[in-house]
């Protein structure tokens, strides 16, 4: 069962990602997309840092790149990341939302619309409420939402806001349990099919 795993966060999420990425195995047969708030202007080495810490191919999205399996995609700084019906990424340089571009909500909502129950949305540490509304839409469309445990998150605002808006979120997890839970969700779906 191929899934799309959208991992998002803001301030404090980078350290978490560097713990999560090395554990991702090719055998999982999923597509991974990382949408995090990051500074523009600076020549970002983020793609390389992630690639050095991950056995999967890591690729910063270019406009109209096609989403492939077993690849980790990184949303470029300063663009909203969308996905179209042909499974191609579209970039969008329209207004910032909640002072953010990429906006986590925008990606989560368009991904929920397209992938429905094949989407797992992981929300990490961050300093604003971006992602809370997106989480709501992911749940409505049958996807799963995992939130980093607020006690552990460097900035708890982002996970807390998501939980406030969506008290029904089942998975509130410390870092070391996130990857295993993604695997578990994959397996349960295999069984029910």
């Amino acid at each position, binding site marked *: 069962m191929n899934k799309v795993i959208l991992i998002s966060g803001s301030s404090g999420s980078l350290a978490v990602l560097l713990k999560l990425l090395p554990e991702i195995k090719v055998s999982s047969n999923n597509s991974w997309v990382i949408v995090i708030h990051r500074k523009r*202007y600076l020549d970002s080495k983020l793609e390389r840092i992630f690639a050095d810490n991950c056995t999967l191919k890591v690729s910063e999205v270019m*406009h109209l790149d096609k989403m492939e399996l077993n690849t980790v995609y990184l949303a470029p700084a300063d*663009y909203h990341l*969308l996905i179209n019906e042909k499974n191609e990424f579209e970039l969008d*340089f329209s*207004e910032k*939302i*909640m002072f953010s571009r990429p906006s986590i909500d*925008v990606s989560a909502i368009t991904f929920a619309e397209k992938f429905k129950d094949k989407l797992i949305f992981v929300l990490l540490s961050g300093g604003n409420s971006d992602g809370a509304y997106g989480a709501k839409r992911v749940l409505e469309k049958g996807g799963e939402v995992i939130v980093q445990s607020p006690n552990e998150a460097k900035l708890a605002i982002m996970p807390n806001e998501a939980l406030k808006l969506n008290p029904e979120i089942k998975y509130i997890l410390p870092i070391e349990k996130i990857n295993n839970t993604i695997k578990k969700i994959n397996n349960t779906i295999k069984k029910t099919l």
Partner: protein
Amino acid sequence: MTNNTLHRIENVFLSNEDLSSAIDLIKSLHDVDFSGYGKESLRRRFNRLMIINNWSTYYELKFSITNGKLPVTDILSEITVNMTSMFRDVNFYKAAKTSLFPYLETFPSFKIWHAGCSTGEEMYSFSILMEEAGLLKKSTQYGTDLNQEALKVAKKGVYQLKEMASYAKNYMECGGVKPFSDYYVAKYNAVKMLSLLSKRMVFSQHNLVNNSSFNEFECVVCRNVLIYFNKELKNRVLKLFYDSICPRGFLLLGGAESIKGTVVENLFEVIDGNNKIYRKKISYE
């Protein structure tokens, strides 16, 4: 718009049929063709248009387009994205200075086409850097856009004062040598860029979707325009640029745009892959 209304952009959901039919309608009534635009970003723009006008159904959108309640200029202003800023992407401007400027220096006069120049911030950024490099006097910059309202702003060169702090910071990071405020006159909440900078600019409406080339240029700048197009239209536009650039001339694209996998992939040499600076190869055909 507040955050709440912005969130509704993702809410009002036009079906694929509604979206196609709105595109057809605008094409037949106003002769503006959005069919080659990326579906998802276009859907968000239409949603935005509906929220701004307080429409909740596709019927209201269709009614307003058909009955001329919504002038075509308003449609274009809202559907096309006009976000731009001065010295956006410091690394890009630094790279342009080192790779493009020495080439421009070799000409007694040269032409640059800014395709999709929107409100002109990028052209003024070029003017400033070219002035400091002693190139401005030799230049002619052609700014074209689909949106005439945006072109009016570009022509005037009047911008909001509150933007200037971040532009000044970018300018300094690009290696600016003067106080940024030397390049404009401020009054109330606005600034006017010096006429020295706009003297050698020419503006005209041009639609990349169906208009053809209108001159030959030493350099074409088209940043964050191709991201709104689908593959076919992107190919068409890149071919149009190829036909408009003189042999060994430059093509400058936006950070997330690339010629990889397009019809012009082998016709340009990659000068700077990160900053998307390309150079036309000489063809011996």
